[in-house]
Structures are given as C-alpha cells and as structure tokens.
C-alpha cells in the first residue's frame, strides 16, 4: 500500500475513509437526535447551537445530514459492490465459456443497454412503489450489464494467453482458472470502473429519492431531504443547501479518488 506508486492516492483514500467512517458511525456522531421533532424551534437559521439550522419539524439539519451520509453512502457502496461482483462474474463466465449461456445473457444485456438507464430506473422504482431498497434494485437491474460487458471483453482478450493454456494443461479446473488466474488479471480495470461509478450511483440514488421514488420521509436521506425542503428555498434555504452540499462534496471526493486510481493503475477508460 505504501510503495511510492500508491503514494498519490493517500490523501484521497484518507478523505474517502473519513466519509465512510462518518457514514458507518453516524449514530454516534450526530450532535442531536436526527429524528427528534421540536415544533417550537422549527426553521431556525444556522446558529451556534444548530450549525446548519433546523427544518420544518424543528429537527437539527446537521444531525440529519450526518445521519443521511449513512443512508446515502452505505446504500450506494452496497449497491455498487453488488452490481460489480455479480456483473463481472457473469461477464467472466460468459467470456470464458462462450456458447448458449453467453448468447442469452449478452442479448439480455443488449436490451438493457439499449435503454436509457435513468428513465428505466425511474419507471421501475416507481412501479415497485418507491422505498430505498426498490430504488437500489431498479438501478441494480440495469447496472450489472455494464460490468458484465467490460469483464467479458477483458476475459476474451486474455482467454487465449499462454499462461491460461499452461494452467489448463497442468489440470486446473475452469473454476480454478477463473478464480486464480482470470479474476486477478481483470480486477484492476473493474476496480477503477467501479471507483469512477460511485459518484454517479450516489447522484442517481439521491435523484430517485428527490423524485419521491427512493428513501421515504422521515428517513434522513440527502435527496429526500432536498425534496421535502423544495418549497422552502426562499424562506429556509439551509434545509436544501446543506444536504445538497453534502452530496456535492461526497461525489467530488469519490470522483477525485477514482481519477487518481485510474492514473495510478494506468487503466484506459
């Protein structure tokens, strides 16, 4: 990790690490209870006591932004991990085995890829009836195809390499070759693609919540918080600007990390 090659990553990994730490331990870091209502103290502008002010139910906005990091960041990373792992395994198997399975799965991914992702996610999340899980499922149904495509193409390019033949001749099983020879070789590209995707996933998930198709009130989720505050932009802008800025900084940090990771691992996008 600390070889000179990886040194440029340290600041970004640290920043992303802090974000993930906050997200995991949000419960213990909030100054107030993010769900405690206090109608007397509603819509108080930012001040010493409530750094980001309070919302229409008198809930502390800073506490809700911190709590929201848990929902938004953890859900996005879990979603991304799922589609990356599932997608690249399917792609690798297709690329390595070929044949009927390959044809069927790739035609299926053709159908999904020939359709605008966000439109599909809006429609599916909507008909499933909203909720964070359904929104994530809607993004996952279409999201895996990209990783399947990439890993399939990568596997096709290394399938005929001499070291794979050598492994075959020394009696390795298909699964063995897939896990110990192919996967490690394509992991770098997949990792960079995933790192560059975190920001997009966060924005899409928050976007669905913003439309009312993701996390439901009173859940402290950034997109949902901005949706609920929409009518108060003129009177209580902090209710919207705080979660908006949180999305921006989170996405920016993960985008920087993704860019640097690509440079360090020298992967062509």
């Amino acid at each position, binding site marked *: 990790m600390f070889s000179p090659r990886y040194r440029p990553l340290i600041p970004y990994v640290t920043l992303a690490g802090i974000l993930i730490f906050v997200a995991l331990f949000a419960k213990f870091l909030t100054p107030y209870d993010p769900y405690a209502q206090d109608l007397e103290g509603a819509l108080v502008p930012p001040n010493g006591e409530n750094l980001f002010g309070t919302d229409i139910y008198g809930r502390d906005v800073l506490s809700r932004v911190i709590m929201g990091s848990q929902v938004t960041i953890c859900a996005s990373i879990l979603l991304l991990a799922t589609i990356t792992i599932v997608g690249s395994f399917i792609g690798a198997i297709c690329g390595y085995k070929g044949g009927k399975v390959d044809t069927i799965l790739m035609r299926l991914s053709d159908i999904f890829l020939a359709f605008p992702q966000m439109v599909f996610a809006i429609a*599916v999340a909507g008909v499933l009836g909203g909720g964070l899980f359904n929104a994530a499922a809607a993004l996952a149904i279409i999201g895996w195809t990209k990783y399947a495509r990439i890993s399939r193409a990568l596997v096709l390019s290394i399938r005929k390499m001499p070291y794979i033949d050598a492994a075959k001749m020394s009696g390795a099983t298909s699964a063995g070759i897939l896990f110990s020879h192919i996967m490690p070789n394509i992991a770098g590209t997949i990792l960079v693609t995933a790192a560059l995707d975190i920001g997009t996933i966060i924005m899409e998930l*928050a976007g669905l919540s913003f439309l009312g198709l993701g996390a439901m009130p009173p859940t402290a989720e950034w997109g949902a918080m901005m949706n609920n505050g929409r009518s108060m*932009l003129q009177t209580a802008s902090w209710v919207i600007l705080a979660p908006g800025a949180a999305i921006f900084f989170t996405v920016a940090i993960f*985008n920087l990390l993704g860019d640097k990771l690509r440079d360090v691992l020298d992967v062509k996008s």
Partner: protein
Amino acid sequence: MRKYIFRRLIQLIPILFGITFFTFAMMQLSAEDAVDMMYRQSGSVSEEIMAAKRAELGLDQPFLVQYATWLKGILVGDMGRSFISGKLVFETFAEKLPATFALMLASMSLTIFFATPLGIIAAVKQNKFVDYIIRCLSFVGNSMPNFFVGLLLIYFLALKLNLLPIISSGVQGIIMPALTLTISMGAKYTRQIRAVVLEELQKPYVIGARARGVDEFTILTKSVLKSALVMIITLVALSTGSLLGGTAIVETIFMWDGVGKMAVDAILMRDYPLIQAYVVWMAIIYVIINLLADLLYRKLDPRVAYEEDANV
C-alpha cells in the same frame, strides 16, 4: 445504407418487447395499483366499488392477458387511455412531447456551444491558468446532481438576483431548466473534448504541419476541429440517455410541462398506460438518436462504414 437503417430499426423490436414486458411484470409486484391511488383521497371506499373499477380497467385480468391486450392495442396504434384523466394516451403524449423536445434541443445546443470552445482552449493552453480554471469548473459540474444545480439556479438567479421568474412558460421559462441540463452535460463534454484535442495535437500530422510553418489557428480549425466534431457526435449519442432521464427530474423541478414531468406524475399515481407509453417512447427516441449519430459517424469517418459493412 438503407439496409443498415432497416436492420437497426428491426433490432428495436426485441428491445421494445423486452422493456415493456419487464415494466409490465414489475407493475404486478407493486403492492398498490391505480385503483388504490384513485380512492386514497376519498377515504374508505367499499371493496365492491374498487373491484368494479378494477374490472372496468382490466386490472383483474391475469398478467399475461393484460400484457396481450395492451400489445394488441399498440399494434394498431392504440396506446389506451389514462386511468386517471381518462384521456387518450397518444394525445396526451403528442401534447407534451414538443415541450420536452424543445428542452432537449435547447440544452444540447447550449452544451455544444459552450463546451466546444472551452474544451479546445483548455487543451491548447494545457497546464496554464485558463486550463486549470476550465478543468476545475468541469470537475465541479461533474460532481453536482442536476436537481441540486437546478435548485441553486433558482436560488441565485430567481430568488437572490431576481433575474428570472421561478416558473413561466415559453422562452423565459426554458432558460433555467435548459441551463441546468447544460451545466451537467457541459462539464462532461468539456472534459472529453479537451482530452481528444490534446491527443490530436500530439499526432505526427500536426507536428508536420507545424514544421511546414502552418500557423496554429489553421491547424486547429482545419484538422483538430474535425476530430472534436466526431467526439461531439459520440457524446451526443452517449448523453441522450442521461438527458432523457434528466428531463424527468428537471421538468419536475421547474414545472416544465413535458413528458418527463408527466411520467413522474403518472408513476406516483400508478397510471400504467401512461408509464408504458413513456417507456416505449423513450426507447424509440433513444434508438433513433443513436441511429442518427451512427449515420453521421459513417459520413465523417468512412472507416466505420467499411468495418460495419464487413461485419454484416
């Protein structure tokens, strides 16, 4: 050429089948249907009335029967009636589609208009101050979700500076939603155009032209711009998908009366015929724009056509 277009349009058929079947299947998983939504406001309604309404709308039929009925309608050009308003789906669409097209066209042209010169300037002045500023701006634009950009525009342009009304129709009303989409898209375009121009400037023919004493401006306009143009067409094709999704969010924020806002409203009310029609239309628009981009591509770069035809 004609054969190629025909083949691409034929490919649209399985896509439409797949997508509509899928959304139809998803609707069956939903716990609440349009009838639940309709009577939600009116309090408790007897089960008989709800059942009668379901029978009227065909919602009591088995899933495959519903899909077949819908499909039969589509084949004769009948997309059904909205569950909620009772209006013909096709008419509702025809009414709202121009507003969405106007928004897409405005944001697409604004994006190309701003991003092309910015990308080229950044590449020519690589690692100079201007380049850093442009890269910084495009990074910021890339890291902001479009609904946040939209709300910030309302906050600053409409509320703080009083330059524009928050919501209005016509030319004045299109400015903010179009700008919102432009900022999100332009950030990506600028970055890609910068990259492609940088790459082009390293090529031997540019070095050769420089050695022959051709001035930088001629090199840029005569040769490099062409490669930027190919990149722009690729970007247009690639970003149509996110633009179509973006219009749904942006139209909702700015109350722009297009198909995106209509779809979000329809989804919240479980108005299936409208949702299905939206999905079908978006797929058609997406495929057609991609097809047009590919055709342009073949015109600009004959190598593409050659490879494609060799693959047939």
